[in-house]
């Protein structure tokens, strides 16, 4: 609400009041400027990052990096095809493991028992799980899978990533289900449908786009993670032939190559970073484009 005001006559304020009001307005301006400057200061690292990604990553970005194997230390050529496949495989395993549990759990806490103490507990635990360091997921999968099967594998990496994805999928699915108007449910029950019919035919189709969006955000986040797969899937110079052997991933390739003293390998780390950031950002944007429309 804007109230039209004219400037008060100049004798309206005493001289003293004029001074303080000047000070107040001046400090107001100063703080506004500072706040905007501080905010724009956060742009500097991001633009620096984007510039370096393109400047250092683009020169080696040919089609062949998607199809070839990583070069041994010190040698030129090659690519990181196996790492891209490895990342996709492990994120796929993680999604298969976490999506059913996350979605079914979300249906339980949102549809079957929204006010029970079990629901409150699940919600709280899920929030805590989102705060678990990703390296702990790795340590857990190491203890549970690697030590039992006796080898590093894509399965262990996928298991570690699934723990990371589970709380995100659960919480976003719950949000999606809560976004469905309760009048839909009332109408369905009013027509004599059972809870299962209501959920399966009315609520889920309506919540699906938002759920898919949450899932894709979880997938994007998992694809960029390094710590959980670092010592569960390890790394491999070869194409993987099964999910029970050490598997390369883009993020671990970046980590390994960034520490090497060879210029070419570091260049390749930048190219891999560019591809990884493009994959992650692409998934994010795709999720928003495909599914936001209905959500908002």
């Amino acid at each position: 609400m804007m109230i039209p005001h004219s400037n008060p006559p100049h004798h309206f304020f005493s001289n003293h009041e004029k001074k303080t009001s000047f000070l107040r307005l001046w400090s107001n301006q100063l703080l506004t400027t500072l706040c905007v400057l501080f905010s724009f200061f956060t742009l500097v690292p991001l633009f620096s990052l984007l510039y370096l990604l393109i400047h250092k990553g683009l020169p080696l970005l040919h089609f062949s990096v998607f199809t070839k194997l990583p070069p041994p230390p010190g040698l030129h050529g090659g690519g990181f095809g196996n790492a891209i496949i490895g990342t996709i495989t492990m994120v796929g395993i993680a999604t298969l493991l976490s999506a059913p549990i996350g979605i079914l759990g979300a249906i339980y806490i949102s549809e079957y028992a929204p006010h029970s103490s079990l629901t409150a507990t699940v919600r709280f635990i899920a929030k805590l799980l989102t705060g678990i360091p990703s390296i702990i997921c790795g340590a857990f999968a190491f203890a549970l899978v690697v030590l039992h099967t006796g080898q590093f594998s894509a399965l262990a990496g996928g298991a570690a990533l699934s723990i990371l994805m589970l709380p995100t999928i659960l919480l976003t699915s719950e949000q999606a289900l809560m976004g469905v108007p309760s009048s839909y449910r009332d109408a369905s029950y009013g027509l004599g449908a059972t809870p299962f019919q209501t959920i399966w035919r009315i609520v889920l189709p309506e919540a699906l786009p938002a759920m898919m969006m949450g899932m894709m955000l979880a997938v994007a986040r998992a694809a960029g993670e390094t710590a959980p797969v670092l010592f569960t899937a390890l790394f491999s110079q070869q194409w993987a032939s099964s999910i029970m052997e050490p598997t390369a991933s883009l993020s671990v390739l970046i980590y390994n190559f960034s520490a090497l003293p060879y210029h070419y390998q570091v260049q390749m780390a930048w190219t891999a970073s560019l591809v990884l950031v493009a994959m992650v950002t692409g998934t994010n944007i795709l999720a928003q484009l495909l599914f936001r429309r209905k959500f908002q």
Partner: protein
Amino acid sequence: MSAPAFIPKNRYRRRRDYFRCFCWIAAVIIIFLLGLIIDEIFTKALPAIRHFGWHFLTSSEWRPNRDLYGVLPMLFGTAVSSLLALLLALPLGLAVALFLSENFLPRPLRQLMRMIVEMLAATPSVVYGLWGIFTLVPLVQHYGEIVVHHCGWIPFLHGPAYGNSLLTASLVLALMVLPTIAAISRASLVAIPETLREGAYALGATRWETITRVLLPYAAPGIVAASILAFGRAMGETMAVAMLIGNSQRLTLSIFSPSNTLSALLANQFSEAEGLQINALMYAAFILILLTLGTNIIGELVLRRTQRALGGGS
């Protein structure tokens, strides 16, 4: 929202709802998962806990070749790097939160800022690490030497200055927790009833008098929660830190010297560990999980309390 009680007892109703059972099982799995994680790591850590006991926390020797393990330097590095990151990120995060919730600049620009903060949050940790190697490490090395030369007598600032140091890790951590602080602070700023702001304006307060005396005090619990959660996140952050902190196993008190954190220790040593070293690393992981879990529980409780005080909230 739950199934109402007045559903007629038709043939569907009388049958057991197996789907409900599946959903219940999934919900219970999530509860047990946290317990399972803690239990599994504790079990694997048990030999080391029995062997070293509390001495593990106070010893600063980490020598796998002699089976001597202590994490004092890593505890110090974790605490200091996270605290420093929080101190750096808090003013910036608050500025961004205010920028996003106030109308300093037109809406499209705010939308742009929001997208940028989201991009900062979505960038993989390992890419931050790579970026840090190329930008932060030379910067810290260069300006560190100048600072050490002029202010070396101040505690925690003595030399020699290295590029891979506690400060470098803190800088990148600050960047990584900034979105957390900005998002949660913004949510608590937006949740403030509009009447408070209008009241302050009506009394003749300027915009910043309103912000500093009305809005920020009202949103303070939310900002505190944001800081606590960001602190927890900083403690658990691994890859960027492991690439930038220098991974020194010695206890050093300068922010310009290489250091180590619990998570970076795990990242560096797990893949080649054997025997007792695995147990010692699991012990370190157990300490890390207790630290982050404790911080997160406090943060969530504070956040929950503020949301209740604000009457619901998101």
